[in-house]
């Protein structure tokens, strides 16, 4: 696999209606790392993920996903990339196993045993249609579906938005379980949950005014050189990127 780009955007310009949401957007993912894409709501994070899946066109620049142009080779990209949307995008009447059976033929690398394992591990109810699942269960079902083809690249769009504390923890635990050790799985996750970012991120990319303003390891973007200084990362991320002054209770 060495030599193949996981995900690379160069000079990307993407418009929604009359507004350029991305402009001069450069980002290259580090293979095997969890990259958290931070930025304000409406800042273009979701649009970027959808462009990576060939679902949105861009006006300028280049975008490569697993070495492929997602617009020209959308089918191959969709087959190889796991995607968890912010709101489940499957048929509401489908139950967990029906959804898996429905998706399986679309993915050459689909692993039915892995799908079943994920459903078990995430405690997704088998007999309830998607419409009847809680938000957290819906997110877990979509995560299980995304993991079943054992993707090299996992794209997650605000998987923790709108979840209560218990569900948030369940989704976080499921996601961390899917990261594995030393496995060649790269993850790009958008979120505005800084606690989640501090827990899972190897790398942070900060999106502002349509472009990536900063990208580096979590210690790097916080101006640290070694992990020993990394206590209180959520607070430090808030101070750095949101300009929030937090009271410190040292």
């Amino acid at each position, binding site marked *: 696999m060495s030599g193949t780009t996981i995900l690379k955007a160069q000079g990307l310009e993407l418009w929604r209606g009359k507004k350029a949401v991305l402009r001069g957007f450069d980002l290259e993912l580090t293979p095997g790392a969890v990259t958290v894409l931070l930025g304000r709501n409406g800042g273009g994070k979701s649009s970027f993920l959808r462009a990576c899946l060939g679902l949105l066109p861009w006006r300028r620049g280049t975008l490569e996903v697993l070495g492929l142009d997602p617009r020209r080779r959308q089918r191959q990209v969709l087959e190889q990339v796991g995607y968890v949307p912010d709101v489940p995008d499957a048929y509401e009447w489908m139950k967990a196993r029906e959804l898996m059976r429905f998706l399986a033929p679309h993915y050459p690398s689909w692993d039915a045993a892995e799908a079943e394992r994920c459903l078990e591990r995430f405690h997704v109810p088998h007999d309830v249609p998607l419409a009847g699942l809680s938000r957290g269960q819906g997110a877990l079902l979509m995560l299980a579906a995304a993991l079943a083809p054992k993707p090299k690249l996992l794209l997650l769009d605000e998987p923790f938005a709108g979840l209560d504390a218990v569900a948030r923890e369940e989704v976080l635990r499921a996601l*961390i379980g899917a990261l594995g050790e030393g496995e060649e799985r790269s993850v790009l996750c958008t979120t505005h949950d800084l606690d989640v970012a501090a827990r899972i991120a190897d790398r942070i990319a900060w999106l502002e005014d349509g472009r990536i303003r900063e990208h580096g390891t979590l210690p790097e973007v916080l101006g640290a050189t070694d992990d020993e200084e990394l206590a209180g990362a959520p607070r430090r991320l808030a101070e750095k990127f949101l300009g929030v002054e937090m009271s410190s209770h040292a």
Partner: protein
Amino acid sequence: MLRLRVDSTSTVPPSRQLVEGVLDAIARGALEEGARLPSVRELAAEALVNPNTVAKAYRELQWLGAVRARNGSGVFVAEQGTDIAVDARRSATLEEFARAAETALRAGHTKGELQRVLREFEA
């Protein structure tokens, strides 16, 4: 079973919290010598942190001599792991105690008051 949750708001870095949590479990006998620690992936899911953070903590514990990695089969509490953990915890808790005493003195408590607190433990 090792129940460790990393507090991301703490002033102690996440991997350090895991090191201290494991040392604590070994020192109080919850993990005996020769016992197998959870896999990196298991502990990451339990503590809700990136597996790399756990791997870093395990390397640190290995460096301290409290645990030993057996190739392929996992990470285990080392022989003499309990002594090492007890020593490590002792010096850490004594430091914490000294820091707390310092804070109390700065806040205006007298040495006499602190000594009274200590004497209450004797009773």
